[in-house]
């Protein structure tokens, strides 16, 4: 009797394992099947075009537009270097480099500004009652309802020489001449901070909302000052949201096109404008392709850095 039951139990175990294995196999197949649409989109909309961009960056620009199918690396050299018009010696392409640097600098400043304005905002919302939290979040998302162009022109209206701010300053007699704000780095930074602020607020809010305020009480109870509590408890716990927000702000900033175009004018070109220029007036598609890829590399480096920061900090505290 016992023998029998043992036998049958081991047999049934075998059977169960077999069923398990088969169902797992089926599971894996199903998973591939289910992800097929997404994979197709990624291939046709991301990987495919990317390959074309890479290909184009190694071709010769056509006379008016498009490309001539002759292989060259000249374009890639001209991304950072410049051939002298007369004696063909190579020097730094200052025009490009200054645009790269401005893009990175303005993106960094924008990220820092959105963090400075965004963290207190997120903290404020997260500490409201659950009911009013939704209203505040709703208010934060309202700007998304109107087109980016409209919002950017609204900022222009605020800061131009005969705009709202300058009119007001002159009216109260603080200044006689209008303060030049349009077409400066300030205008671009200001505009981008405004546009990308919600992208910082939302992820930071999400992580503050998850924060257990008992931990803050615990820190106070253990003799931490407000500042120490912020630095040792709140910031480390909110860091994932802060990093997500930084990524969401920094990366689109690098490639921003509309804001620098309208608020920066022709003087304050950023990466996005430079690329657009090559495909448009510049009629240099290969250079546009090479610049696009350069931007991608910079974004990749930034992403890897952000990921490193977030995982590195975790280890340090361990």
């Amino acid at each position, binding site marked *: 009797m016992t023998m029998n039951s043992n036998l049958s139990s081991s047999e049934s175990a075998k059977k169960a394992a077999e069923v398990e294995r088969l169902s797992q196999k089926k599971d894996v197949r199903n998973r591939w099947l289910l992800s097929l649409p997404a994979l197709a989109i990624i291939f046709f909309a991301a990987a495919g075009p990317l390959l074309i961009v890479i290909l184009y960056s190694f071709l010769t620009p056509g006379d008016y537009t498009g490309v001539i199918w002759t292989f060259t690396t000249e374009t890639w050299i001209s991304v950072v270097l410049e051939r002298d018009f007369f004696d063909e010696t190579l020097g730094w392409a200052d025009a490009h480099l200054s645009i790269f640097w401005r893009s990175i600098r303005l993106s960094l400043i924008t990220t820092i500004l959105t963090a400075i304005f965004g963290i207190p905002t997120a903290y404020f919302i997260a500490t409201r009652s659950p009911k009013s939290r939704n209203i505040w979040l709703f208010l934060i998302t309202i700007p998304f309802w109107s087109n980016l162009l409209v919002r950017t022109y609204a900022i222009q209206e605020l800061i131009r020489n005969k705009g709202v701010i300058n009119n007001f300053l002159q009216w109260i007699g603080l200044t006689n001449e209008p303060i030049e704000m349009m077409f400066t780095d300030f205008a671009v930074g200001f505009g981008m901070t405004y546009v990308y602020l919600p992208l910082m607020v939302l992820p930071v809010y999400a992580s503050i909302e998850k924060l257990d305020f008992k931990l803050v009480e615990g820190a*106070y*109870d253990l*003799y931490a000052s407000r500042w120490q509590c912020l630095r040792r408890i709140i910031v480390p716990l909110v860091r994932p949201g802060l990093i997500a927000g930084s990524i969401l702000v920094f990366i689109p900033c690098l490639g921003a096109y509309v804001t620098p175009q309208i608020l920066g004018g022709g003087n304050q070109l950023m990466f996005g404008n430079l690329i657009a220029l090559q495909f448009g007036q510049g009629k240099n598609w290969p250079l546009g392709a090479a610049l696009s890829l350069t931007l991608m590399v910079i974004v990749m480096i930034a992403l890897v850095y952000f990921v490193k920061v977030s995982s590195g900090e975790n280890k340090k505290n361990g």
Partner: protein
Amino acid sequence: MTTNDEAIEIKNALKVYKGDTDVYALNDVSLMIKKNEFFTLLGPSGCGKTTLLRLIAGFEHPTSGTILLNKEDISLLPPNKRPVNTVFQNYALFPHMTVGGNIAFGLEMLGWSKSEVASAVDEMLELVKMQDLKNRRPAEISGGQQQRVALARALAPKPQVLLLDEPLSALDLKLRKQMQIELKRLQSETGITFVFVTHDQEEALTMSDRIAVMNEGKILQYGNPRDIYHHPENKFVANFIGDSNFLLADIQNGNAVLTDGTELKLSKENKQVSNGQKSILIRPEHVQMSKAKGSKKAFEGKISNIVYFGTDTHFHLELKTGDDFTIRKQNTPNEGTDFEIGAVVELTIDENAIQILND
């Protein structure tokens, strides 16, 4: 009240939460907690015991009244300026720090040197028997272990008073019993005053030197566990701690006359009580039962139900007055089933077992 051994004194503390209708979380509470005492605040949820604890910790400030720590007014000091630490209900361990990091936190904030912190952390880990888990994260250890870490973290800065906010409520029964003993050991080893909040009457009775029973923002009674159990002042306290039989009685010259005319003798202390209608309390285990002899004056009841509990048996009776009455009888190996449902029994009550209540 002016002895030198008081750790905390609370004078007329009032805590009102403004709203559509004002909520009196604490309503004129005065209390004295002695040094090296295991003091328990006991009451149902919402009775104000946690509010009182938070007032002592400094997370909230009283609407009026004062809190003295070693005769110093600390009512308005922030939590980080009070030599008082808290063990939170859900421990509130810092999830991004290790066990060792959690214990070290308070000491670092106090500005101790690295070597002092390190040796104190090791000492605390040994005290709560957690040496092996120093480098684990809170998420990687069990609930009971988290509890020990929370204790070690709060004890490490050697506070004058340790506040414990229902620290055992998240643990299962066996672990809870173990931690009760552990807590008593820690308290006697460290000599720190413990203020313990719980809604579990058994926990309060077994662990405390003194208990304050609270309800609706007020302290109803405080004293040592024996006093509270044997001499509760009112129905709420009697009901909250232990099982109770309440009977309505007319007090007449040292006797309690029940509504059916049965007379029960009162003890000498209770003879002072003025005549009139009162509630009396009789604990179920303070009553003896025997077969009814049929005398008219006897205090009798009819068994309506019997519940067997292993160590003892509960007999539910119906008295001649119509009241329900419970008797708890300890089981012995030689006992048969003397009493059966439907039998009429005579009850004998020691005069000291009758307690007259104030409401």
